[in-house]
């Protein structure tokens, strides 16, 4: 009897199990969504910031890698970060402050210039590193999937370390010249943020284009040199004639450089309209760059 019952019971359990399985399978077709759908994409695609957020740890680890690699096996280490802008600022002070006698709105010329050099160097470093980043990390791109945006974006963060060091040097310089900052210093993060957005926007374009056209690498030093001369790094916007200011302001670097000067030293020739133009431009470049990057990134693994 018991033996006869056993299989029956099992069978009935089996039935129920398969019934629930069928039910859940039926449900699955409506509720169980694929984690990933792979299909060819055409045209523009969404930025997918949620996925980028999921990979935020990778972004930070990549940035940390950049920083570590820069200072491994260097004899002078962090001294480079201190010396490089200091020497540049010193040369500008001698050439433009002493010899050309350009105005510095009543501030010691070296302070006036160093504030600009610090933030400009940050901007230039992001462009330089991010611009070539996809090529240097091509092995990653061809061997593993992750949001490609993380690669150039890592440069935006890694270069911040150098900027922080430069700002410390600036603090020391200010103490030396006993220039005390006003409440305006609190706006400094905003200007640095503007520099970061502008730099990231430009570098998204550059890095994506660099995958397809390798001569962007060679164009980069030239671009940075010309751009620096066209920006108020070694001199102040004060020397630009008033009627040209608005045109000058079309260079988005003007706003964050003069803004930094204003935040640190308290005086500047920058105007509100200049800032509005620069912020608008930077945001357009940034968003445009991000969408452009997303559009071309699907071909990276095949072309890089």
């Amino acid at each position: 009897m018991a033996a006869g019952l056993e299989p029956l019971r099992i069978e009935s359990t089996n039935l129920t199990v398969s019934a629930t399985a069928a039910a859940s399978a039926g449900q699955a077709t409506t509720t169980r969504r694929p984690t990933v759908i792979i299909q060819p994409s055409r045209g523009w695609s969404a930025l997918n910031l949620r996925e980028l957020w999921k990979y935020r740890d990778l972004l930070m680890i990549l940035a940390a890698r950049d920083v570590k690699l820069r200072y491994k096996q260097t004899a002078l280490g962090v001294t480079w970060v201190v010396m490089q802008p200091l020497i540049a600022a010193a040369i500008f002070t001698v050439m433009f402050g002493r010899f050309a006698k350009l105005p510095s709105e009543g501030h010691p010329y070296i302070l006036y210039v160093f504030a600009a050099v610090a933030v400009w160097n940050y901007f230039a470093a992001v462009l330089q590193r991010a611009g070539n980043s996809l090529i240097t990390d091509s092995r990653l791109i061809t061997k593993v999937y992750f949001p490609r945006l993380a690669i150039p974006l890592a440069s935006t963060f890694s270069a911040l370390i150098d900027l922080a060091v430069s700002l410390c040097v600036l603090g020391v310089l200010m103490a030396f010249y006993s220039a005390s900052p006003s409440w305006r210093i609190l706006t400094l993060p905003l200007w640095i943020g503007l520099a970061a957005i502008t730099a990231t926007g430009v570098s998204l374009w550059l890095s994506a284009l660099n995958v397809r056209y390798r001569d962007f690498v060679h164009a980069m030093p030239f671009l940075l040199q010309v751009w620096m001369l066209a920006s108020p790094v070694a001199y102040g916007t004060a020397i630009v004639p008033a009627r040209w200011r608005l045109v000058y302001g079309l260079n988005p670097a003007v706003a964050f450089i003069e803004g930094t000067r204003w935040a640190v030293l308290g005086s500047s020739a920058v105007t509100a309209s200049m800032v509005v133009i620069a912020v608008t431009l930077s945001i357009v470049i940034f968003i445009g760059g991000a969408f452009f990057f997303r559009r071309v990134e699907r071909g990276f693994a095949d072309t890089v």
Partner: protein
Amino acid sequence: MKETAIRAEGISKSYQIARALKRQPYRTLQEEVIALPRTLWKRARGRTEKLETFWALNDVTFDVSEGEVVGIVGRNGAGKSTLLKILSRITEPTYGRAEIYGRVGALLEVGTGFHPELTGRENIYLSGAILGMRRSEIARRFEEIVSFAEVEQFIDTPTKRYSSGMYTRLAFAVAAHLEPEILLIDEVLAVGDSAFQKKCLGKMEDVAGQGRTVFFVSHNTQAVRQLCTRCILLEHGRVVADGATDATLAVYNQRLREMRIDAETGTNNPENRRGSGAIRFTGVSVEDIDGEERYGFKMGETVRFRLSYQLNEPMRGVTIWIALRSGISREIVTSARHVVTTNSLPAGATGTVVIDFPDIYIRPGEYPLYLHISEAVPTKTNYDVLDDLTPPLVIAPGGPRMHQNFDPAQPLGVFSLPSVMTIEEPIQQDNHTATVNA
């Protein structure tokens, strides 16, 4: 009913290859600017550059259920790696659609993202993050990864100071602890020493045993046989067979045999064909002792290689040797180095030699061939190598040399040496235990 893990429908991938110019996929802006007038002129006249479309994958459709361990086999260029790249989202398909249910871990190479300047610790975090792990997740598994890799003492040493074995172990350890629901693996196991390979295989079997899905791409049929329950055969980007591993591999080997060995195989593939072309194999065949061409042999039979060659440049002497590639690490078993002649030969000279393995005393398995011919004193250029040549030589169990205690399921080793055991000292049993047992 098992839930689906991967559903692929009509996956196709094409590449455009410029027929006329063999150029890089990227161009310089300068090139494009210079070429612009010509391009426009051609386009205006309705003539565009002749691009050849190469279909790396063509209408590939399959379903993989949760917990299945699926092997993908096929010759070089069959589309195996392309399929893996599409499923791991590295590149997009041209047509088709795939749905993936669950977290994917893809291992297309060992040590992705590793940087030699960084320490072991730093590389674990870097590589883990690249593979998709959160920092907290890596921290939690850190000890486990380090001890799996056996690099405890060197964890804060830059990995460039690691031996290649340590490097590989660490790299695999990170990937092995990824804990994906779906694991996509390219032939990454083809590295490391055999003890480590055993460990890797064990880890993969663990993964499979835990009901997770494994998708294993390989042209190493032995590894596939060992790991996979189901197997898909790709040929020229199409699915040719899909079913139980033994059945699919039988089809695969049958197809390989039908193709016969072609000395021109892989002429343009630098991985499989090396050498300057000063001397070339012109014909290769494998025969049994009666001169009949075949690739399947039993242990201890005679295998005869008939090799023809041609000199395209004058040379001093000719040397030939044969090797069999085997196992997961593709180590090779070589023949003696046979000197055909040491005399100077003019360009255009041809010849044929026969090399016998009178007693093919190796374990059952599939052994792709490695053929080497060179000048008597080998130089850097005057040689020809056909590497990983298929069809493989198949050694089946049985035959005159199969000894009694042979266990075909025992997976490691190439040789199985006959051994004899005599009991010198009979087993001493503890009387007390014996009574209890009785």
